[in-house]
């Protein structure tokens, strides 16, 4: 295999890594918001349940969560949903991993939503009560205060911790290979097993480095563009 062929083979895998990254971010970031509000709810049972849920999700390895979502439906309830989806999308003689990807996505979205929710909570609680009171004194409604005063500051404050999570996310996608999803490190392992080539395994690092480099630049720009309170 030439270098270009190997590059293309690994790139195929990195596309799956990027897919997991993008879908998790797009679904997990909004989902974190309701979880954050529930964990700050004035209604005690909701607050308690949410906190326990976040504790479990943050307290258990993501790899185990993937195993649970992938294996438990068929082991406990006889629901072979992932196998069916895998079969449905199979075209050649190798089983597709479409269903396995969905299982991974569910695990990732729930996991990251919980982490994001804690970042949101931290951001929202960092705004002092005085600012709300000042808003009410000026005759603004609850929604107006949140939208115009609180949220703008919160967004600005959570960008650095969010950047951290986002960068961790792209590297966490490698966990998908524990249920044989064809992300980039899995692909590199196939090359090692099938073609007796070891270097592609280490070369995968280049893909991550380039992508994280791009992310760093983009997130840095975002941070800069949010300096609306400086005058």
């Amino acid at each position: 295999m030439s270098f270009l062929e190997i590059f293309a083979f690994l790139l195929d895998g990195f596309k799956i890594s990027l897919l997991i990254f993008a879908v998790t971010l797009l679904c997990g970031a909004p989902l974190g918001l309701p979880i954050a509000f529930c964990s700050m709810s004035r209604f005690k049972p909701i607050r308690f349940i949410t906190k326990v849920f976040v504790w479990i999700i943050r307290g258990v390895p993501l790899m185990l969560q993937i195993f649970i979502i992938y294996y438990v439906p068929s082991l406990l309830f006889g629901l072979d949903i992932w196998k069916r989806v895998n079969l449905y999308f199979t075209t050649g003689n190798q089983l597709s991993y479409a269903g396995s990807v969905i299982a991974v996505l569910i695990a990732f979205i729930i996991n990251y939503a919980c982490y994001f929710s804690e970042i949101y909570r931290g951001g929202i609680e960092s705004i002092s009560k005085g600012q709300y009171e000042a808003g009410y004194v000026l005759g603004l409604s609850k929604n107006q205060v949140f939208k115009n005063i609180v949220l703008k500051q919160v967004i600005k404050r959570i960008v650095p911790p969010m950047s951290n999570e986002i960068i961790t996310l792209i590297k966490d996608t490698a966990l998908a290979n524990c249920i044989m999803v064809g992300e980039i490190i899995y692909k590199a392992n196939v090359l090692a097993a099938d073609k007796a080539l070891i270097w592609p395994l280490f070369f995968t690092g280049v893909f991550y480095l380039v992508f994280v480099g791009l992310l760093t630049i983009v997130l840095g720009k975002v941070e800069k563009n949010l300096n609306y309170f400086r005058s």
Partner: protein
Amino acid sequence: MKKLLAIILAALMMVACFAGCSKQETIVVGYTIYDPMNYLDENGKLIGFDTELAEAVFGNLDCKVVFKEIKWENKYTELNSGDIDCVWNGFTCNTADDDGVARADKVDFSYNYMENRQVIVVKKDSGIKSAADLKGKIGDAEKGSAGETYAKKFEGIVFKGAIKQTDCLLSVKTGNADFAVLDAQLAKSYCGKGDYADLTIVDALSSEVEYYAIGFKKGSDLTAKVNAQLEALGKDGTITKLAKKYGVETTAITDFADQK
């Protein structure tokens, strides 16, 4: 991009899937990458002796067949949970697992269709020549494989486990293990290939003859059907043809009469 789209659509079409599955039975065969039994050609298509034999057998039974890569130590879980219908991947049948239970007690085996041995692979300059040289050395074998059982028969070795046989080669190559215990078939095709050019087999330490068979869930009705097809394909020369194609003609079994 098309593939990505397909996967995204998968989520939406899960419901459609339940309604739309075809009536023709699909058999899922579990494998690990293993040249010359199950491996990829230049175009990324899965080929190999086991692959083509499985396709021939299930083709005759009018079933669709797809292959699922598994982790070898999970083979019993995968069989029992119904994720795969059989393990057809150079599955040594006449041995016991690490827990001392014979494999034949855990799964139903088809007829033996190939001879195999466990061989010891080392670096060419390792100086390992006899069983005594293995003392205190780190030995690697696939977790849950016949190789693991064989490795542990040598006294004084330190055992290290791997997810698949080819990972053991990587361990020896990188010095994380001193020797690997692998199937003869696999060792022959990998030693000297690509990055494994400096690995070699210690012929003096090979095991007695073992046999490969196809493993099914206990009580599966597929076993008898597959056996009948193996017999037919042995008679009409298909097995011989495939064996020649993949260079395993000295070990492949074509006459199953004495196994009935």
